[in-house]
Structures are given as C-alpha cells and as structure tokens.
C-alpha cells in the first residue's frame, strides 16, 4: 500500500517535471488559455448568430468554461499511456515495482491540478468577456462542485487511458472523447435537443452532471441543492477508478502476452 502511494507521488512529480521538457511554460500557458478562450468565443458567436433562446451566449459560455476541464482531466490523462509508448518508456514503467495503474494515477493527479487551473481561468474568461454572472455563486460550493467533477472525469480518463496500454495509441480515442462532451453533455445546448436515443448516453458522462451543477450554483444554488448531482458524480467517479484499475491490469497482461507494449 505504502509502495503504491509512493509510486503515485513519484509519478505526479515526474509528470510535473517533464511538463516543460518540450514546450516552455509561457507557450504552454498560452496554449491552454487560448484554446479555452477561443473555443468559448467560437460557440458564443455561433449561439449569438443562431439566436436560440434555449442556448443563449451566457449559457454557452458557462458550459464551455466547465467543459475546459476535459482537456486535462480526460484528454491529458488518457493521452498519458499513448505518450509513454510514443517516447518508448512504457517497458521501463513496467519494469518498476509499482503497478502501472498507480503510475498513471499519479499522472492523473497532476492533470487534475492543471484541469482545475484551466477551469478557474475559463470561468474568469466567461465572467469578464462574455458577461456570465457568477455573483450569486457561493465560492465554496462552486469549488466543491469543480473538485468532484474533476475527480470523476479523471477516473473516466483513466478508463480510456487503460485501453491505450494495449492499442497503438490512445490519441484517437482521446480525441473523440475530448470533443464528444461538447455535443452530449449539455455544454452548448440542453440535452433535450438531442434525439431521444442519444440522451441516455449523455448521463454516462460525468461532465453532464458537472455542467448542470455549475449552472445551478451560478444562479445561487447551495451545496444541498446540488448534492444529488455531486453524489451521482462521486459514485460514477469511484466506479470509474475501480473499473480503470481492473482494465489496466487486464490490458497490461494482454499487451505483455501479445507483445504490443512498445508498438507505436
């Protein structure tokens, strides 16, 4: 147990140190902030032009601010396994006494920090540039909702990342999931706009509950008001972490058996 905790901590530190190995801090910061700002602006302009009262620019800006978590919490996490293959370090990770799951969990911890930073900045952008009123939101409740959303989404990212251990890369799956949230999770328009057969799929994504909870908190909802959504997210998150553990074990064995661990 202690060895696993040390493994998670070490992996988090390695992820932090290697962050700026290729891209410098300034460019990295510009990249995450510009992506979040321009994505939000794009959809705000589209909603402004479309003039749909059910999806006003404020609604869209707030949804995109929360969805900015996806870049780190899901894409960043699920890309970790692909990135290790990419640079040829997957076999080295496997030779350590720490189980692969804990190594990637450590990377997930680091991505959570980035995700929370990104979503905080995105909410600031939504408020300053797109007129989203967050004055009624209780800071503690908002922070709690974002933390639980992030926790749950990282678990989801780990599930997808585990598949990357076996596949040649997790980039393809990660790219799909990264943007699917914009369509399915009530980010840009209410889920009721989707065809009936697609709507149940929306509720499999933790982001759906996170977006809904933040919308409630933004209009003055208390912790009690969003507790149902938070419990659902927590339950989904815990289930995702457990599933990811078993999936990592399974795909690790499969990759070893088929010799696909270093195939990129």
């Amino acid at each position, binding site marked *: 147990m202690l060895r696993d905790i040390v493994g998670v901590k070490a992996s988090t530190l390695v992820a932090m140190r290697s962050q700026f190995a290729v891209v410098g801090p300034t460019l990295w910061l*510009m990249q995450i902030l510009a992506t979040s700002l321009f994505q939000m602006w794009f959809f705000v302009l589209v909603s402004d032009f*479309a003039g749909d009262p059910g999806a006003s620019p404020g609604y869209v800006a707030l949804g995109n601010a929360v969805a900015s978590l996806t870049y780190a919490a899901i894409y960043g996490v699920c890309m970790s396994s692909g990135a290790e293959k990419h640079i040829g370090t997957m076999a080295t990770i496997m030779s350590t006494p720490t189980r692969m799951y804990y190594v990637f969990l450590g990377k997930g911890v680091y991505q959570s920090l980035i995700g929370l930073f990104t979503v905080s900045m995105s909410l600031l952008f939504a408020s300053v540039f797109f007129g989203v009123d967050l004055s009624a939101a209780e800071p503690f409740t908002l922070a709690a909702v974002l933390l639980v959303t992030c926790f749950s989404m990282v678990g989801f990212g780990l599930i997808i990342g585990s598949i990357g251990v076996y596949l040649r890369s997790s980039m393809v799956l990660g*790219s*799909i999931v990264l943007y699917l949230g914009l369509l399915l999770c009530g980010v840009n328009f209410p889920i009721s706009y989707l065809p009936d057969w697609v709507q149940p799929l929306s509720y499999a994504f933790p982001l759906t509950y996170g977006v809904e909870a933040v919308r409630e908190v933004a209009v003055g909802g208390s912790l009690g008001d969003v507790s149902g959504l938070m419990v659902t997210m927590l339950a989904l998150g815990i289930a995702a972490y457990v599933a990811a553990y078993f999936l990592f074990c399974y795909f690790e064995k499969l990759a070893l058996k088929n010799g696909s661990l270093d195939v990129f």
Partner: protein
Amino acid sequence: MISLRAMKAALKQQSIHFFVDPQWIIPSIIAPFIFTTVTLFLFRHAGGDLLLYAVLGGGVLGMWGNTIHSSSWSIGYDRMNGTLESIMVTPAPLSSVVFGRCLWNAFLGLLNALAVFIVAHFAFAIDVSVRDPLGFVVALFLTLLSLAVLGMIFGAFYVVTRASSAFFQMLEFPIYVLSGAVFPLVILPEWTRPFSYALPATWGAEALKISAFTGYDSLSIGLPGALGLTALTTIVYLLISFQLFTYLEKRAKVNGTLVRY
C-alpha cells in the same frame, strides 16, 4: 524552386502512410466535425439557408482542422522518427517535399468536408444543393490549395523547433473564429477584421457561400473577387513559405537541432 518530381513522390508517400494506418485522420477531423454538429443543433430552429450556411462553414473548418494537424505535423513526424536529416540531405528541396505532403492532406480535408455534407444531408435532412456548382467546385479546390500552402508555413517551423506543435494547435480555434466560416464576419469585433482578411480560409469560405446561395455577398466582392482574393492570399503565403523554408533550414543546420526530439 519547386521540384514536381519530389512533390509527386512526397504526395505518394504521404498517401501510403495514410492507408497503412488511416485511424490517424480521426484526431485531425473530430474537432471540426463535432463543432459543425453542435452548430447544426444551435441552428436547428432556423432552417433553410442558415443550416446550409453552417454546413458549408463546417466543411471549411473540417478542411482547416485537417490541414493544421496533418501538414504542420508532416515534418514533426520526421523529427519523431529520426528521418528529418535523411530528407534534408536529398537533392530535392524540402519545401517541395512538404508541399506534396500538404496537397495529400488537403485532399483528405476534402473528404472531411464531404463527411460533414453527408451527415448534414442524412442526419439533419439539410438540402445541400448549391446555386452555382461550377463556381462551388472551383472555390472548393482553391480553398484546399490555400490551406495546403498555409500548412506548408506551419511545417516550416517544425524544421527549427519541436515545440511548434503547441503553437499551431493554439492557432486552430482562433482561425475557426476569425475565418467567419459559420457566422458572418460582421458579428466579430471591428479590430479582428484585418486578421480575418489576411486568412485565405476567410476568402475561401466567402467564395463557397457566394457560389452556394442566391443573393449572398456579405462583403460585396462577388464570386470573382472572393476567388481572386483566395488566390492572391495563397500566392502570398506560398512565397512566404519558400522564404521561410530557406531561412529556417539554414538556421536548423547552424543550430544543430534537427535530430532533437
């Protein structure tokens, strides 16, 4: 300046790369595809020309998304695979090799645009018929060419630094906004217009819309004007890209950073 033989060989090589592992097209096309679908949901109550407007814009986004990923990465992959030095010691100019690859990537972008049209037609029942089919085809190919040339410029920077990917990924969304592909440029702030006008994608999207809709000409330049400006910006970017390749190739050799990944 341009070696047609090298271009043809590079185009063929890039196509082989694609057919060996076609899954790599997904990361390039997924963002514009989802963006267009979201746009169609937001425009769903409007109907008529507005939906086709979104589809055409989505097609341009699709082509752009593919270009920025694939073309800018065309040198990035060589850097990653350790083949950049080998390419640079061949007698063929590097710019011709990259241009050939970009042309293939632009062609794939066309397939992406086609996928957007098919989904729009079958899933959203949008009538995708255009007013001037000939003008539309000319506009489409000119837009593709312009995007390929823009991809060359991005590719040139990869010769010098491996950090280029972050910079160009950062440009993906601003260009979605500035090109005004799925909304009119007039709803953008005044100060952004010069940036929009400097982009071939803006004029390409305008030419596509003029050829598709009856009476559409938001910038009062007509189809010949839009096509002319697409061609003009393409030529300007092509000349810039050749200069860039000459300068950046030299710089990379002096700095000794070619094999650094």
